[in-house]
């Protein structure tokens, strides 16, 4: 429980302490449309690779489970080191 409390405290601290940096285009732009564009593209470029990596992981896991279920034929030779 103290660990949860500490985590929450850190999250609250991180959420409340940052201030707008006027040199940062994501934090500050006079134009609302531009600020929104910066935010949206930052989110896109951050989440896209994570999503692709996660998607591949899920896909491989699904394939592995399917193979375990149906016990498909063996299709590749590898040395014991690779196995």
């Amino acid at each position, binding site marked *: 429980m103290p660990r949860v409390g500490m985590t929450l405290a850190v999250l609250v601290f991180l959420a409340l302490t940052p201030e707008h940096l006027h040199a940062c285009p994501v934090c500050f732009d006079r134009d609302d*449309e531009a600020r929104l564009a910066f935010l949206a593209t930052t989110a896109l470029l951050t989440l896209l690779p994570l999503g692709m990596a996660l998607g591949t992981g899920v896909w491989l896991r699904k394939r592995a489970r399917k193979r375990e279920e149906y016990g498909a034929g063996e299709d590749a030779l590898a040395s014991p080191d690779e196995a």
Partner: protein
Amino acid sequence: MSADATVIPFRPRPRRVRKLVSNGVMGMVLFIFVEVMVFAGFISAFVIVKSRAPGSVWPPPGQPRLPFQETALNTAALIASGLVLLWAHWAYQRGRKNIGLSLLLATGLGVGFVALQGVEWAALLRDGLTMTSSTYGSLFYTIIGTHAVHAIVAIFALAWAGVRLRLGKLTPEVLSVVSLFWYFVVLVWPFLYLQVYL
């Protein structure tokens, strides 16, 4: 038996392991990830430049408008090509070998897409939209040109797969690798079309 007989070290027989995905397919998947990020970067740059246009006027004054409706035909051809290839890929994975016509049709539709793009570019250049005419022009040619290069490479790959099919040397894995690349070219296009042309 002689005392100094050669001792052969024990080596276990190579064990068969089952790969979840072939090396070729996994390599193409990773390559596509990289390419997705390249196009995501391009789209981000385009969105930001567009959002900062003076007076929120986009395209910039004095620059020709992109042919949204004419390009819809291109888009339809490209999507149709992807669907035909999807069918051919599916059939080949299930043992059907007579996919030559489908492969040819998919390649032909891809060639049609690139050819129509070329016609469109020629018209835009005549109208004054060049790489140096504005940020709009440079972004348009960079983004759409990069996609066109990918489409051309993928068309050559499809044609090569067609030749291998004719020679009876096309493996399902090779078709999967080539198809994945073409699916990427097809699927990334609607995003570019809606973002850049609209």
